[in-house]
């Protein structure tokens, strides 16, 4: 076993933390260094109690943790697909129970920052008699690690990576180009799609619960900023889809502005449910549309930026984090609409500038 643990450490854990050092560093900075050092314990204590006391906020936190877990699984599966890591496939020779323990251990190590914070939350929950919230966290963490280990167990022991047999959606109507993207989600990334939407909607609902004494659309926009940023996984899969399966379309007579508009339509369709949720929650149609436009512009900007060089997950993630912070500040500063329009214009310009000159890393294949 020690030899296997060493392999797991080298291939999965070390690489995971290396690749996500920037993201984790940023989160760590936001969580622990933006607050005055003298108030940091009080701040986190109050934050944890507020989360434990509100079921919706707790759900929001679960959503964020779940996305982190999905990210870990994606990373582990990506490692598995690399030819130099073929040794991981040999784990299938172990008994299923041993494999399960090994994968759960690996996931726990990668999940450690969340696990430590959630342990503090559990202690506080039990100390302040918030038993239901505390038990929910315990159950959620045990469930999420087990589910992840089960997923890895399935991936390594079978040729087909998909374990969730949800029926595929097939519509008979003529499919315009933007629907090719949506089709990818409803056929290949159903769970990711569903979780992203849940997270996004919870973001909106969570922020709209904050008590204010007047009509304030910025609360919904702030929540939606978390929501559309959470679409990063979908954006990344769409870009991979373009490189692998839609590359043929580059030889077709489509004007660059048509391609941009079609991509915009795909993102507009993707974010349409959130627009509906905002209206259903009492936001005016105009304000909901501004939020929707902001989401579309944000994702188009990141998408358009990705053609500058071969697709790089880390670079894209960093761009997204910076843009997320800027967008958040712009919403707070009541500059949502002008910022969205500016972002859209720059996205179009960047798309036009970079699209034709782009080639995927494996174009020779």
């Amino acid at each position: 076993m020690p030899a296997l643990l060493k392999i797991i450490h080298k291939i999965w854990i070390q690489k995971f933390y290396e690749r996500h050092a920037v993201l984790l560093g940023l989160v760590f900075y936001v969580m622990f260094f933006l607050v005055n050092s003298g108030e940091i314990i009080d701040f986190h204590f109050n934050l944890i109690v507020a989360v434990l006391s509100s079921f919706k906020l707790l759900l929001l936190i679960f959503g964020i943790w779940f996305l982190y877990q999905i990210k870990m699984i994606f990373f582990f599966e990506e490692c598995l697909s690399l030819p130099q890591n073929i040794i991981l496939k040999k784990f299938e020779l172990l008994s299923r129970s041993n494999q399960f323990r090994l994968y759960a251990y690996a996931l726990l190590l990668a999940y450690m920052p969340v696990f430590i914070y959630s342990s503090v939350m559990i202690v506080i929950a039990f100390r302040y008699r918030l038993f239901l919230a505390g038990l929910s966290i315990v159950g959620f963490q045990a469930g999420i690690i087990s589910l992840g280990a089960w997923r890895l167990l399935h991936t390594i022991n079978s040729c087909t990576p998909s374990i969730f047999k949800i029926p595929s959606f097939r519509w008979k109507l003529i499919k315009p180009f933007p629907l090719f993207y949506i089709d990818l989600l409803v056929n290949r990334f159903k769970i990711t799609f569903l979780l992203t939407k849940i997270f996004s909607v919870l973001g909106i609902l969570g922020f709209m619960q904050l008590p204010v004494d007047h009509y304030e659309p910025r609360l919904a926009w702030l929540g939606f900023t978390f929501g559309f940023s959470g679409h990063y996984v979908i954006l990344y899969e769409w870009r991979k889809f373009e490189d692998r399966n839609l590359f043929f379309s580059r030889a077709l007579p489509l004007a660059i502005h048509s391609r941009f508009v079609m991509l915009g339509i795909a993102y507009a369709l993707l974010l349409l449910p959130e627009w509906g949720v905002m209206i259903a929650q009492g936001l005016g149609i105009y304000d909901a549309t501004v939020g929707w436009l902001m989401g579309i512009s944000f994702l188009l900007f990141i998408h358009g930026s990705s053609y500058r060089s071969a697709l790089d997950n880390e670079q894209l993630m960093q761009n997204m984090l910076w843009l997320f912070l800027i967008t958040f500040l712009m919403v707070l500063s009541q500059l949502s609409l002008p910022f969205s329009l500016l972002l859209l214009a720059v996205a179009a310009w960047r798309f036009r500038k970079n699209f034709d000159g782009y080639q995927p890393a494996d174009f020779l294949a």
Partner: protein
Amino acid sequence: MCWQCAQLNRPRYVRALMLSFQQIKKEYNNQLILQIDALKIDRGIHWLQGMNGSGKSTFMKIACGMIPFEGNVTLGNFNLKKNSVSFKQRISFAEAEPVYPEFLSGNDLIRFYNAVRKSDKKNSDELIARFGIGTYYKNPIGTYSSGMTKKLSLVLAFIGSTDFILLDEPFVTLDTATLEILTATIHDYHQQGRSFIFSSHQAQEIEHLPITSRLLAENQTICRLC
């Protein structure tokens, strides 16, 4: 003149656009993949020969605007970089190993190509019947064999009224019956004034085609053999 060229039976050309390459350079990771100082390809059927890795596929991908490159490619008055849409409206390409979204059906792609290439349904229906894909083209592409996918890619390449049709290894993975259909289709479309550039290692399939010229991919460049 080679024996294939001697068999040339000149058809009546509807349009006569010449495909020109000037100062083409393609590098990847600082490694030269392809360099063409000047090359003009007139109407007709052109056979691109060369060993594996000699740059045939890269040449075709450059010619159809699929990948970026240094230099200029023009078709008649249309420059690929300046008049991209007009250029691509006149040229089509079928890859050696086509990759399409596996959850889409062939019908989805055919309809998409019809719309983009401004072609009518009659044209695509005729091609569907000709290549015999009618029994499966409405199924998801993920269920196709490599030969079935290849046939679909050929149908897509023939859709519309393009002047040049580029076919990368078109005879690979096809069954004998489809090989004959493809040869006959190239013949028919050539009679209608279309031009072809195709790469192939299968000399016996090419015997039946009126080859205009042979191009050789060698030493990271493309030159005319005859």
